[in-house]
């Protein structure tokens, strides 16, 4: 069984805005694309052109309907490792291949020591770990550990591939240990929530809930995302109704009968 660090210097993770995610799958395929050639290479695919295509993915989006009285919508729910503070996938690991990094809290699998016993996938309540049949080891989100510290990439690209690709800006990356980070502030102001909090394993990734109407948001976009626009003011609340009584052609024509210059 594998032990956890007493604490980590940083708590790196993702802020995922369920109000903005349109379910486009950009985070899913950009993740696959980077990681099949990166730290987790390869992410194998079985029967890719056949009856039951399946492969190893580190991030998936599920779309389903939710409804409460007076409110209903389709929810697009991206799901990947949440880099928990007390990850049971690590503590069950018999070889130490799964570990939580002391410097940033990222949960990783060392493919050289993973024996593919799959205990971790049973322990994870989020279903975030995937067994790569071809490679014989477990694969999981690395928060693109081979991007975020990678000096060969331009500084602005040192974010996970999913954040780099997300067209709406529903995903942001940052340090939840820093209360002033953009992701911490967004969680604070938007009521970010822990997924399956009752398990007590302290997920680091935070989900921002769907809003119940138009309201400006507190900077959850990754800095530098094209949606981070300086323009525009907050929009005043909308009126219940401005409908005027009456309404006849004669009245309209009288109203339109005025000096108008072209």
């Amino acid at each position: 069984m594998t032990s956890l660090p007493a604490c980590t210097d940083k708590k790196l993770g993702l802020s995922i805005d369920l109000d903005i995610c349109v379910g486009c799958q950009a985070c899913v395929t950009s993740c696959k694309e980077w990681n099949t050639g990166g730290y987790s290479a390869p992410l194998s695919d079985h029967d890719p052109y056949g009856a039951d295509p399946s492969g190893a993915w580190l991030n998936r989006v599920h779309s389903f309907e939710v409804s409460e009285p007076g409110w209903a919508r389709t929810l697009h729910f991206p799901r990947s490792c949440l880099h928990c503070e007390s990850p049971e996938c690590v503590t069950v690991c018999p070889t130490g291949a799964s570990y939580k990094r002391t410097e940033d809290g990222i949960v990783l699998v060392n493919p050289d020591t993973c024996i593919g016993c799959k205990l971790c996938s049973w322990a994870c309540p989020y279903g975030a770990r995937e067994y790569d049949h071809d490679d014989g080891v477990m694969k999981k989100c690395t928060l693109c550990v081979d991007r975020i510290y990678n000096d060969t990439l331009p500084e602005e690209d040192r974010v996970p591939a999913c954040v780099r690709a997300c067209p709406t800006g529903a995903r942001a990356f940052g340090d939840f240990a820093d209360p002033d980070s953009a992701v911490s502030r967004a969680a604070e102001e938007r009521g970010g929530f822990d997924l399956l909090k009752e398990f007590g394993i302290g997920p680091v990734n935070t989900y921002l809930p769907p809003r119940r109407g138009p309201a400006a948001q507190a900077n959850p976009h990754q800095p530098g995302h094209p949606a981070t626009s300086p323009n525009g003011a907050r929009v005043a609340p909308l009126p219940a109704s401005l409908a005027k009584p009456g309404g006849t052609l004669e009245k309209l024509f009288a109203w339109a009968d005025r000096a108008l210059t072209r």
Partner: protein
Amino acid sequence: MPSQPKVAMDIPAGDTMRQTTCYICACRCGINVHLKDGKVKYIEGNRNHPVNKGVLCGKGSAGIMQHYSPARLRAPMKRVGPRGSGQFEEISWDEALELATDWLGSVRKKDPRKLAFFTGRDQSQSLTGFWAMQYGTPNFAAHGGFCSVNMAAGGLYTFGGAFWEFGDPDWDLTKYFVLFGVAEDHASNPIKIGIGKLKARGAKIVSVNPVRTGYNAVADEWVGIRPGTDGLFVGALIHELFRTEQIDLDYLVRYTNAPWLVIDAPGTARDGLFARDASGNPLAWDTAKGGLVNGKAAGITPALTGRRDLPDGSTARPVFELMAERYMGGDYTPEAVEDRTGVPADQIRRIAAELAHVAFQEEIVLDRPWTDWAGRRHDKMIGRPVSMHAMRGISAHSNGFQTCRMIHLLQILLGSIDSPGGFRYKPPYPKQTPPNLLPHGASGDIKPEMPLGGPHLGFPHGPEHLLLDDAGQPSRLDKGFSWDAPMSAHGLMHMVINNAATRDPYGIDVLFMYMANMAWNSSMNVPGTLDALTAKDDAGNYKIPKIIYSDAYYSETVPFADLILPDTTYLERWDCISLLDRPISEPELVADAIRQPVVTPDRNVRGFQEVLIDLGARLKLPKFVNEDGSPKYPGGYPDYIVNHERKPGIGPLAGFRGADGEDSCVGAPNPDQLDKYIENGAFFGLHMAPEHAYFRHANRGYLDWGIEKGIRMSAEPTIFQLYSEPLQKFRLAAQGHGDRQPPERARDRIRAHFDPLPFWYPPLEEQAVSGYPLHAITQRPMHMYHSWGSQNAWLRQITAANRLYIHDSVGAQIGVVDDDWVWLRSHLGRVKCQVRLMEGVNPLTVWTWNAIGKRKGAWGLDDDAPESNQGFLLNHLISELLPAGGGGYRYSNSDPITGQAAWFDLRVAIEKADGAGETEPRFEPLGHASQPPSPRKLAFGRSFRKART
């Protein structure tokens, strides 16, 4: 605890990075392609690119699998078995091109009409259209006729712009955004970025769509409208604006034809036309002067109401008054439309009030001086921060043109077109309205071995511009620009195959198509289309004698062609995304782009445009050869891109022109132009001055600058045509006026639909059939939008089979639960498929993901792939012809004005099917012996793996 393993943090994304333009959908995003050891390793968005600004969608990020698909074609092929058998023989390019030249050359010598040249994906239409023009056939168009011509034509006839790449909501300033009929479609990344911006600012998003998925799922308010009734909903919003007197009258007087006088002389040939002065200027009544004046003149004080006497004794009334009467009438009250639309009257009233509130109480004032068309200086720009976007949900109905016009009318009444916060043009728009580009290809214009007198596609102003033969019959095979579809500005690609096989209006010799899956999901009535492709005459010859097809992949259409010209993937090709065609401009940026080969093909394939230029030279088409007959572009497509000039100084690419590469838009060809594009990230962008950025339809600075840059033809302002006189001209013809008369069968149809003021009518299929209580529509999933993703090993893991989504109440009524099988029936046929129940769909509507269903044998998929056994198409239910009306004639299942394919008019009945099984109809597997077997597993990226510790 043990020490942590060391993780390599310094592995570069690749050893080489090349920039090009994505081509998986129509969005045309800039991409950085990282290569390692010559293999594509990683594709990301180009941060500097105007379209995607660095982000990349689910398709683009799966581009590696698109590029390395086993379904890629490998070499030119000649059919050796019967059509559809998939029996081919590989041939050399020389043999392929000689064969094509032989077929095309003999047609051109005898009767150029006998070539029908239609392209599916149309990002190089300025080249393909130019080639067809030089060839001399009238039978050319791209896929716009079955995609979104209603949006293009509806906008261009109204305000000289349109939705999609002709304009954009002012994402940075708009406060209220209404999205009509946009599922996961046009445009991909820009809408997603825009939604992110709106959400950040707290702008309200209202979605009007029968289905609440995708963008509609994140909207603040969902209007779950019944398909095909958007015109009623919009009409009711307009009704409310008139009723509550919340209309931008100043804007109407300045920029629209609202004050122009319309002659009221029923029964005469002038009825419904604008009253005009001797110079042809439209007249208005000037309240200050108390007389008739030129309605286009600056400084007049025109009346918006009141019947006026004309010098000839007749009377006329202003457009505004006619418009008010139409929308204030009983047809468009919220109560009158609520049943039919399914939108409660209270909701309509509230949305109208919100639109008006934001437009007028929350106006935006930019301290940005500008000069109007008449030279008057204004110190501010006043914006109405309401914007709208609409696409195929409006377009793909037979009432889509008028509905689209009505949406623009709504924007104009609110004063929001090209105002800050409103809907903004993207250069080279606005154009003049009605557009001054006319169609070419009337029978007198077609001569052996001669080019056509001008471009095929245009915008008729009246019956005089129809393309007819001497007997009044259609000149074009698709019956475009005939009385069946007078304003078919993009042609009717969906009618080509069936018309050719039935020889109505005439037979052809060669069908030449590019990148259009017409034997499957791009055709209505797939079984009928397959019959047409394989139909033989009494002598045993195919009724469509020769079919040439170019595609990159082994699609369902390939086995039906006689000669295959294999195209490259998007990473192996040159292209230009041109201002002459469908540019990538942003509202404040004139922009275009290129594709460059970032990898070399490992197959014997050539880019289609390269091949077309080669064929042009072999056929000795005038503009493709020099005077001595030698090829004009010996360097192929790149040579054409750089050196072709449509007019002196204007070529396919606008950037880096002139000997020193310093000229923009207009300038001599620059031999280093492509290098400059590559240096600049494969695109070019020219910013416009802030004072030119709004009100461009009437902005003197912009109009003059546009002429200087060659993107504007006229220095006159674009005056919005709320009332469209060209429509009235067709209507007058239908009433018996003029020397160009429609056939008797068409009179009522034209009289009814060519209303110069936008109005709503029930979709034509539902007028013609009964017993089909539900609407059936489709959309593409975002990760496959505008692309064929089924051969993509990653994307098909996300969606490999589709379900029919039905409302919970429909499920309860017919007694089905998720994954049960049902029969869906239309007046054409029936399809067996599995259902999924949902709440977020209009209860009278069923829908599915389009083009997931695949035919066995195509796309490199195994015969037991879910795409072929559970996946299904609604196309089998959609007839390309409407049921016969009076007189027995069957019109195309299209908008009667534009010929837009009416995919979403489909009406169906549903019943539970017995037991399980597989989808029906299923078709014989296509032979695919020419293709390599697909791999059993993939471990893409293994070769990139380093030692891990």
